């Protein structure tokens, strides 16, 4: 899923400075699952913003609504009635797709992102998420024992490990495990040296972000 985290409250406050009526829009997709932008987080942020305004004696209404997903126009449409009430600002609590879809659907509204979109990853434990994919567009994890060196190696090298890892930890930080250590150990431990031995070719990065913004068109689905 896409892992996000809420922006610092100061930054969000700066978005709504001087505004009186704000709509906070959550998303029941990835950001609910990663505890960043579901109903609960919407509720908490709304309360914080209200408190902030109340303490200064400012008038502020914060309405809350959580969409099934902000990355599909049909769900974004559901906001139409609410939006027509007239808000000074719409705060999206989704990944960065959300504010863009809201902006496109409601072009006259001022839409702000309340979350920072961090990476594609999964939960390692309650409250801990880690990057597992870089959306390189050409998945090769099967070659690496089910581990992705592209997203999980600091250098994204294809023939690791480099000399910088020790005790299975990447040189850049003790918090970063060396995925190449995991890959190599796995092959060695399982007697699959033959799979480790081949030189992996220089990666074709053309399908990754480096190749420019990407789009998928499924002709058989397109009406």
């Amino acid at each position: 899923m896409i892992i996000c985290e809420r922006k610092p409250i100061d930054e969000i406050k700066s978005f709504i400075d001087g505004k009186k009526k704000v709509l906070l829009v959550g998303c029941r997709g990835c950001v609910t699952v990663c505890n960043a932008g579901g109903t609960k987080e919407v509720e908490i942020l709304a309360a914080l913003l209200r408190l902030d305004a109340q303490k200064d004696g400012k008038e502020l209404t914060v309405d809350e609504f959580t969409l099934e997903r902000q990355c599909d126009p049909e769900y974004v449409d559901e906001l139409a009635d609410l939006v027509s009430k007239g808000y000074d600002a719409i705060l999206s609590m989704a990944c960065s797709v959300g504010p863009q879809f809201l902006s496109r659907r409601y072009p006259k509204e001022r839409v702000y992102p309340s979350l920072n979109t961090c990476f594609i990853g999964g939960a390692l434990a309650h409250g801990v998420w880690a990057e597992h994919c870089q959306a390189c567009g050409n998945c090769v994890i099967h070659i690496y024992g089910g581990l992705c060196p592209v997203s999980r190696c600091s250098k994204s090298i294809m023939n690791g490990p480099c000399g910088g890892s020790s005790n299975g930890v990447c040189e850049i930080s003790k918090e970063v495990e060396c995925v190449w250590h995991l890959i190599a150990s796995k092959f060695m431990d399982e007697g699959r040296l033959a799979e480790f031995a081949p030189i992996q070719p220089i990666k074709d990065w053309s399908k990754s972000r480096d190749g420019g913004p990407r789009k998928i068109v499924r002709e058989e689905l397109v009406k």
Partner: protein
Amino acid sequence: MSDFEPKIIAFCCQYCAYNAADTAGSMRLQYTPNVEIVLIPCSGRFDVILALKALESGADGVYVAGCLEGGCHFLDGNIRARKRVVYLQNELKKIGLEPERLAMVNVSASQGPQFAAYVDEFAGVVKGLGPSPIKKHLAA
């Protein structure tokens, strides 16, 4: 400000803190009437929205009272509660509200005296802070 009577909401877990409050009662320990207790099954049930709502409604202070660390009837509800309290304290600080208006305390069921002492201590802190700015504007 000396005649300021703060309104404080205390979320007390049923196994220890609420029990401690009862113990304080059966010992007839006298403490400030500024605190009103809301029973929750475990301090782990403490939800940041409860504190936010209390503050929004105009409470001058909120605290959560759970079992002693290591003594939670549900293992770690009190640890989680404390983390949530710390989280919310930071958020309050960021929006310019005194984080001291929110607190967490641990007491065992038999610690009636400690409970009573804490009530007075926390009420003292809140008194020192003065009325919640939210209440001020609510009244206006």
